[in-house]
């Protein structure tokens, strides 16, 4: 291995607070080794379509790299749409060409900041010969191979902030606020935010919910003089199989058609990723408690804003860790935070795995101890 290297950093997936910290971490750690760092614009687009960029798609990064590289929400070099010489649209595999261009640009390695989906693409590129180390990003914290993805802590802080406001507003208005947060497969964000604000109930994808139990609790609260409530729902939360869909929610056949997973009655929540579950739960709780509710969807909002101290540190650590990994001759791995260590996990073990909330985990115990309901069916033996 040569002592001086030229490496690149790019971002697949959407913006997540702490992204700049990762890039800065890479640049500074590489600088310490005497390596130079370039940024590939918009995922791999900077290399695949250099003609689209005035700077040629590959920008040198120095110092505290606060530059926004841009990001590709769906960078897939294996399936690039183009118009061929016969004026026909086709999707072509440009992965080989991409790897060739990486070499031609004098890049020894690429550090990719990617979410769970783009991880698979980097896995395939590595299989084809790209030297790469991935850094996991996920505001839902559902990447299994790491304890903490950067971005999650900022999303959590923002969600807690918003929930606190919703609770004040709910109290003032004498209503039950139902707030939906990100979390299609894993309920970390809803659970941890719910704990932080001591919500009345938290609904997560891991536990099919029954609103009757929650309604009884809320009703009791209302009857004893606290005429407001706060329910946190993850967007992937689903009613238990035998719970009837509330008649009040008009079933939108079109939206149902958009999401094939939605065809089952109990799974109709996945119809509309954003907002559907909040609306459903708010309406049904209103019906069951005879008390006013209102839904609120935080949705994409949690993905913006400044990073928290935790995400700044984690981002810098991930960035520097990736450089350290390259320096040690690693490739095809993802940087993983396993407190207190920063380790490396082969990409093959990182893909296709989702970190969900274990039923008997610490956070669940804490939540139960605080009297937070999950809408579980009581299991009586």
């Amino acid at each position, binding site marked *: 291995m040569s002592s001086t290297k030229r490496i690149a950093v790019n971002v697949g997936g959407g913006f997540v607070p702490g992204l700049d910290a990762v890039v800065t971490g890479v640049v500074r750690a590489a600088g310490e080794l005497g390596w130079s760092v370039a940024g590939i614009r918009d995922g791999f687009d900077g290399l695949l379509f250099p003609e689209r960029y005035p700077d040629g798609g590959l920008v040198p990064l120095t110092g505290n790299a606060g530059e926004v590289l841009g990001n590709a929400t769906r960078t*897939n070099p294996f399936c690039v749409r183009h*118009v061929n010489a016969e004026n026909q649209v086709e999707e072509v595999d440009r992965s080989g060409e991409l790897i060739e261009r990486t070499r031609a640009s004098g890049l020894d390695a690429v550090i990719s900041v990617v979410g769970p989906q783009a991880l698979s693409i980097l896995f395939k590129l590595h299989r084809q010969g790209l030297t790469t180390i991935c850094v996991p990003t996920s505001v839902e914290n559902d990447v299994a191979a790491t304890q903490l993805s950067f971005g999650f802590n900022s999303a959590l802080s923002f969600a807690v902030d918003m929930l606190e406001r919703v609770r004040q507003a709910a109290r003032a208005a004498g209503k039950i606020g139902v707030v939906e947060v990100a979390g299609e497969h894993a309920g970390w964000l809803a659970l941890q935010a719910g704990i932080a604000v001591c919500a009345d109930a938290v609904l997560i994808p891991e536990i099919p919910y029954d609103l009757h139990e929650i309604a009884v609790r809320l009703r009791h609260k209302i009857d004893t003089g606290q005429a407001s409530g706060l329910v946190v729902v993850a967007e992937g939360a689903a009613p238990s199989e035998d719970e009837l869909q509330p008649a009040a929610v008009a079933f939108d056949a079109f939206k149902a*058609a958009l999401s094939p*997973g939605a065809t089952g009655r109990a799974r109709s929540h996945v119809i509309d990723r954003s907002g559907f579950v909040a609306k459903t739960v708010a309406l049904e709780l209103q019906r069951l408690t005879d008390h006013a509710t209102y839904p609120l969807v935080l949705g994409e909002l949690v993905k913006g804003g400044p990073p928290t101290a935790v995400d700044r540190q984690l981002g810098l650590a991930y960035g520097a860790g990736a450089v350290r990994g390259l320096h040690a001759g690693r490739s095809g791995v993802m940087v993983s935070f396993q407190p207190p260590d920063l380790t490396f996990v082969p990409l093959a073990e990182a893909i296709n795995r989702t970190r*969900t909330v274990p039923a008997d985990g610490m956070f669940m115990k804490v939540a139960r101890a605080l009297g937070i309901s999950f809408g579980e069916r009581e299991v009586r033996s």
Partner: protein
Amino acid sequence: MITGRVLNIQHFCTHDGPGIRTTVFLKGCSLRCKWCSNPESINPKPELAYNPSKCIGTKECGLCLKECPESAIFTVDSDARVRINWDLCTNCGKCVPVCPPIALYQFGREVTVDEVLDEVEQDSSFYRESGGGMTLSGGECQLQPDFSAALLEGAHRRGINTAIETASNVPWEFMEKILPHVDTVLHDIKLTDPERHKKWIGVDNVRIRANLKRAYETFPDTTFIARTPIIPGVNDDEEHIRATLAFIRPHKNVVDYELLPYMRFGVSKYGFLGRVYQMQDFEPPTAEAMAKLRAIIDEAFGRAASVAERKAPRA
């Protein structure tokens, strides 16, 4: 033996040409209309589809997990059903035969000309009664020129009337091969402006227009019917209708111009293929808007407006 990639053979179609017809859908398309209602027809190769609502879950089954050589099928703890990692799937199809509830299936298969014609011929009595026959559709049926030409020629030899549905964005040599065996050509004219054509469809329409003009002139005895899928906000303007009429009216063998209202058929298939439908916010055109546009056509063809109430063919 010429073979081709066929998506589906649909019997008793009434909107794909005259009479009762059997429509053969071919795989592969050279356009990417954002409103496409047959996304499973775009890829020229066989393609995996997955309907999660049919999956019986890994507790009872899980056979596909063992079958996939690419590890493209995986599970999530919070759900019993499998998931597909579309970025890893190579469409090898090995998971398809082991899936008991047919939640996993493959769009498209390789078939011979005779296999198709034998199936088409089963309904020949209906064709005779109704003046129907066989229609090749897609995808773009003209992208498999040898297969399509053989099918059409074979149908003629068996006394079956032929039609094709085409967008005409193919090399002229392909059309030259196919059109001699076609009785009725149903061809799209989706947008007039080349720039907007490129924006919504992926390529400009220069070749399409050149091909059509040449086809009208080269095959004067063939019946042509122009069509526009009316997408509100995209091409539901009178200018497009008038421009299309100006394009087709000088040619006497273009006997009609049909408008097909945009429908949301097929959106579920986007999910089954792991793709995203980009037209969620588009509403189908109103009946009034359609009638207004059709009136322009009726006037140009010098006929009574009553015909304008024709029912919508497939999107």
